[in-house]
């Protein structure tokens, strides 16, 4: 099969062997599970349970909030202790609404029933997957049911199954493929049928020969002529959806476009496995495979119930004493966690213990010498140093012109930069500022519209008043003089005569609508905005805790990004 290449990429040390020596271990069910309601892209599910309720394993405890959301389930049986705010596995250390369950140790399932997708409509199957809580398990946690529509002509050319797993240290997909290839392929069959895919390509980086072999055997055992397992060259980020699609098909899906418009769609192997469990076994998504690696004595993969505390999981792999941080995800794109006391969620593919030795703090930042290393390494074919200059100088328009939003934040540029510039930090900063400006602009636009409308009304009212006055004076004058005046004269007189009168009438009242200047309009818009902001606290009292949490999360993320990016910014800002 012909493979294509993507530009750029890097080949860091992979560190994958350590955690692949032993099979997946089942992490014991903890006594308390903290299950966040918001675990995927999209709306926060509504809680369906309250303190005191008994729940069964697999029972839905959070209902999808509209279609752009995904349901949440109890990972084991027990009692709901609380529905309250708990700390999230997020760099900001923010809290969000969680269902806290005290396990009863019986691990009692709901009645599990397979779902015959062949006798249901596509819409019904999508709803089923939404209510089974299936989301992308590669780390992006995009609700799977939203990706289930074939493109044009109701069929898909190529379904791509992503088993590339290019981030160093992470091996959860590798082990899943080695141990549960058949289940994955059964999930792939469902995806293929639902998307009416012409062919299926399973892409696996060639540093995982055992996974390639297991998956190939499963495809052959199933007799699937339309499926092929393809070993792709190992180079980070070959597992990025866009990069893998490019490597396997030669198709480049531009930023902001749906890949189905190009006849391809991409799912992670873990997601295919979850689909199999949901549809064939009637088990909603309540657990996932998590790699625990890095600065630990016994790196390993675990099958973990969602809501298990990370600390409990980490302890099983015996973190070394000099562990100074916890990263969720890999070393290239992962996020630093503020605390161990957070739950494992659907996005947790890896818990990486870090130390000064393993991830030394970056050497001091030097000026950019325009060496172009970053551009050579960029898989999105961007000019990272140009983006850096523009972001640093806050010339955001230019940054966007140079395709800032095509940046996938893969970190290759920061990885190679000889000046040790934390380039990705600058892009995160620029993106968040642009989003913030845009929402502020939207608010200002709205305020301006309102203001202009009021201005218009006031101007009209003033005009009407003036017209009435003019009519009156005109009438008086007409009465005082003789009636010989021509009608046209009277009307042409009316305006100049009326204007001063109208003005004198309104001046004492100091109507703001008089001769509005652009500056005045801007000031008014700003005032309007400030007022709207002042009103906000009153409004938030009516918000649900999760809405408040969402607002707080957005604000905190912005604040954090600013705070992180600012130390690097020129001192004059």
């Amino acid at each position, binding site marked *: 099969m012909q493979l294509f290449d993507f530009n750029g990429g890097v080949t860091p040390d992979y560190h994958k062997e350590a955690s692949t020596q032993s099979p997946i271990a089942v992490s014991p069910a903890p006594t308390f599970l903290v299950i966040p309601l918001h675990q995927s892209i999209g709306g926060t599910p509504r809680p369906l349970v309250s303190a005191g309720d008994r729940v069964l394993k697999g029972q839905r405890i959070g209902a999808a909030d509209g279609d752009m959301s995904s349901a949440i389930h109890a990972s084991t049986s027990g009692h709901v202790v609380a529905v309250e705010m708990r700390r999230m596995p997020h*760099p900001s250390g923010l809290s969000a609404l969680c269902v806290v369950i005290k396990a009863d140790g019986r691990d009692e399932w709901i009645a599990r029933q397979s779902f015959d997708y062949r006798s249901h409509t596509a819409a019904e199957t999508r709803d089923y997957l939404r209510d089974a809580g299936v989301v992308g398990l590669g780390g992006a946690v995009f609700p799977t049911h939203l990706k289930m529509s074939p493109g044009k002509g109701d069929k898909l050319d190529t379904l791509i199954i992503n088993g590339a797993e290019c981030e160093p240290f992470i091996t959860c997909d590798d082990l899943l493929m080695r141990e549960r290839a058949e289940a994955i392929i059964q999930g792939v069959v469902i995806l293929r049928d639902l998307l009416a895919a012409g062919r299926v390509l399973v892409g696996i980086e060639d540093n995982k020969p055992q996974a390639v072999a297991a998956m190939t055997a499963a495809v052959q055992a199933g007799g699937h002529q339309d499926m092929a397992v393809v070993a792709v060259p190992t180079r980070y980020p070959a597992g990025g959806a866009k990069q893998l699609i*490019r490597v396997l098909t030669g198709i480049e899906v531009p930023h902001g*476009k749906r890949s189905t418009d190009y006849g391809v769609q991409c799912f992670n192997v873990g997601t295919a496995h979850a689909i199999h469990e949901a549809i064939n076994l009637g088990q909603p998504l309540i657990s996932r495979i998590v790699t625990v690696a890095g600065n630990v004595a016994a790196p390993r993969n675990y099958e973990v119930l969602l809501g298990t505390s990370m600390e409990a999981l980490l302890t099983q792999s015996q973190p070394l004493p000099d562990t100074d941080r916890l990263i969720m995800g890999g070393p290239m*794109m992962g996020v630093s966690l503020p605390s161990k006391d957070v739950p494992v969620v659907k996005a947790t593919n890896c818990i990486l213990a870090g130390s000064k030795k393993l991830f030394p703090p970056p050497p001091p930042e030097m000026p950019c010498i*325009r060496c172009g290393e970053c551009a050579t390494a960029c898989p999105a074919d961007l*000019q990272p140093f140009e983006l850096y200059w523009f972001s640093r100088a806050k010339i955001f328009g230019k940054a966007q012109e140079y395709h800032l939003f095509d940046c996938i934040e893969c970190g290759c540029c920061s990885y190679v930069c000889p000046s040790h510039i934390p380039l990705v930090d600058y892009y*995160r900063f620029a993106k968040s500022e642009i989003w913030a400006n845009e929402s502020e602009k939207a608010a200002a636009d709205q305020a301006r519209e309102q203001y202009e409308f009021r201005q218009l009304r006031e101007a009209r009212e003033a005009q009407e008043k003036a017209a009435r006055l003019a009519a009156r004076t005109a009438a008086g004058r007409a009465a005082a003089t003789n009636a010989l005046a021509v009608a046209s004269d009277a009307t042409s007189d009316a305006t100049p005569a009326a204007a001063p009168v109208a003005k004198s009438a309104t001046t004492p009242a100091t109507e703001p609508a008089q001769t509005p200047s652009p500056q005045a309009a801007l000031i008014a818009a700003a005032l309007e905005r400030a007022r709207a902001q002042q009103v906000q606290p009153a409004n938030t009292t009516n918000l649900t805790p999760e809405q408040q949490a969402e607002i707080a999360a957005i604000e905190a993320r912005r604040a954090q990004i600013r705070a992180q990016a600012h130390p690097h910014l020129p001192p004059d800002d």
Partner: protein
Amino acid sequence: MNNSPYLRQAASVQSVMLRVLLALLPGIAAYVWFFGAAIVLQIVLASLTALAAEALVLHLRGKPLAIFLTDGSALVTAWLIALSFPPLAPWWLVVLATLIAIIVAKHLYGGLGQNPFNPAMVAFALMIVAYPQFMSRWPGTDAIDFATQWQIIFGLHANQTLDALTMATPLDALRTALHSTNATTVTVASALAHNPAIGLMAGRGWEWVAAGHLVGGLWLVQQRIITWHLPTAFLATLFLLAGLASTINPSEFAGPLFHLFGGGAMLAAFFIVTDPVSAATTPYGKLIFAAGVALLTWIIRSFGAYPDGIAFAVLLMNIAVPLIDMATQPRVFGHKKNGSNHHG
């Protein structure tokens, strides 16, 4: 605490600069072999001046000394100045040139990474305009001993015998011959045939210095410190232009090998046009930039008033860099060349 990525390649500005210095060693070795150790003296002078000037300016600008003084960039500038200047030039010429390069051309523009003009070339251009008489003190291959070289450099040598000890470079020799009063009878062939400075391909000894720079330069490409674009475009353009002109009119124009191996073409191709800060950065931009430098170099060499036009050619092209970069932005993943998307 820093953010992702937490892994970093063990690269640094310092290691980049160090490898550039290393890559200059073969050329320097050939230089010493054929022309004596004067060049080493000049390199030491330039290096000490560069470090002192760098330290002074960094101190005045309130920048951390330890990081920036050891980044190696000042040393690279110093070595390039020493290698492009005549080794028998008086000591103060190289010192003055280095001061100008570091203080004016580098730091007045904002320091490392900010200078739009190649500092070494700024210094060279200013000196050749201001002190043309000293910029022609090239040694002959019949090596004068180091003691004499020392005396010449430090002005201790009787001036009247100086002319006998220095010798024109191949480019210089050719220019003087072609432009002399009986120029009508002199052709490239006759000028070169009777010149003791001429070796196998270009100048005696010079061709080996150039070969040394070629070796060092190829090693830099192999080390991925520089990409192939700039040297290839520079050398290919110079080769083609010289080849074309010398084929059409062999009596007036020197051949391609003479251009590549005489004068500073190899040094320029791998160490000067490749200065990342002042060169174009996009792949096509690099090709255009280097081809432009080569074209201007050949024009100045063939028709201009100065024997080697590389410095002026580089500076002229430096001006065009922002334009070149803007016009040659590479296609972004998933986008068509014009910035729009596939399939509309």
